[in-house]
């Protein structure tokens, strides 16, 4: 158990170290989502529309699209440098590789969301610094990371992975997107835990379904 935790820590350290040296994930996710948000903010007349209604949709859709672009970057080193095989011959559980990818994607998405949220507060004048919204974003990001860790692994052995991943990833996260947009809208308008709880239940249920499914399929996906 101690060895597994230490190995998991090193796997995450390796992913984050490689990311901070290449900055491929952060740069692609951040630029894409910032561009989307800025384009929407300029094309919508915010004086006639309620930002609390339109803001969450723009925010979460842009994060979902940019995550689908960023997730292949987490696997790109294993793919380009063909290092997955050297991981598979080590005596660690394959689940640990999945957990490390999930946690790495989660950490990197949270870092980019902090910047995206800050910009959205300025552009849309919406109050995102709210405990309910923080919980919603943690649940949503966990879901994105879980599905992303599985589908990213699928892309290692395929060509045109950066094109294929959004096609597979986005339809699967639609329920999560509905949860994120709906619950953020209610949280912004009502700021009421009671009204948000059914939505939060939906998000947690999604994660409870997809987390074990992703673990189950991950090993099958990475083994030739």
């Amino acid at each position, binding site marked *: 158990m101690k*060895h597994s935790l*230490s*190995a998991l*820590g*090193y*796997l995450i*350290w*390796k992913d984050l*170290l*490689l990311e901070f*040296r*290449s900055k491929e994930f952060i740069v692609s996710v951040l630029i894409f989502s910032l561009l989307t948000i800025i384009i929407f903010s300029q094309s919508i007349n915010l004086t006639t529309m309620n930002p609390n209604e339109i803001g969450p949709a723009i925010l979460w859709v842009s994060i979902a699209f940019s995550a689908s672009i960023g997730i292949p970057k987490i696997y790109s*080193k294993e793919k380009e*440098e*063909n*290092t997955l*095989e*050297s*991981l*598979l*011959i*080590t*005596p*660690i*559980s394959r689940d640990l590789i999945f957990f490390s990818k999930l946690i790495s994607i989660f950490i990197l998405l949270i870092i980019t969301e902090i910047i995206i949220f800050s910009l959205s507060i300025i552009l849309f004048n919406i109050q995102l610094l709210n405990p309910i919204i923080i919980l919603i974003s943690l649940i949503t990001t966990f879901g994105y990371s879980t599905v992303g860790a599985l589908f990213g692994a699928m892309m290692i052995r395929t060509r045109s992975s950066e094109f294929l991943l959004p096609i597979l990833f986005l339809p699967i996260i639609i329920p999560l997107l509905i949860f994120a947009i709906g619950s953020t809208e209610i949280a912004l308008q009502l700021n009421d835990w009671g009204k948000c709880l059914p939505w939060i239940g939906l998000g947690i249920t999604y994660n409870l379904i997809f987390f074990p499914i992703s673990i189950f399929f991950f090993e099958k996906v990475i*083994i*030739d």
Partner: protein
Amino acid sequence: MDEAISLENITKSFGNNLILEDLNLKIVYGEVLCVSGRNGSGKSTLIRILSRLINPDSGNFFFNGKPIHDSKEFRKNIGVLLDSNMLYQDMTILENLKFSSSLYGIKNPQKNINYVSELLGISNYLKSRVKELSRGFKKRTELAKILLHQPRIILLDEPEINLDKATIETLKDIIVQERKKGASIVLCTHSEQFNEPIGQKFAYIKDRKLILSKNP
């Protein structure tokens, strides 16, 4: 001598391309097996089957005389040099070796890192990023990485590629040393430099079968 790995009637194909058919192989501890064969004869496939990176279509695989129940225990005991890259290019040699040590649960990694880096002559380059190294130094680092956890079974796929003559001699010394310590070594190679006696048995792959021979 104790049996390390035994393959019985192994068949492997990729699509319609049959690579290995009813292949049998027994390797004992303290033995070096040098496998040769033409390009595409299935040497790399054999190494991948022996390291359990790919599963055969049919046949039996035994480790220490028994079918494998705990795949992690098997992987703890093997060191594999593949024909593909095994290092993270954006990390230094030291970071790669430390990372690998952590995955094998090595308790005092610095001691092992010092030993293998001295052995392979890379100790002055530990802080260099892998992408800045020559191919020869990359191969030396890969060799250091696979010896780090002192495996009992060593599988080498064309280790001579990118190595100069002096380093091949060092590698041969390492092979002899590991064999004397009781390790079992399978070496797939084209190089005639491994034909010189280092206590090895010879085999070649022909018509999808492994044939033992007295001479290289």
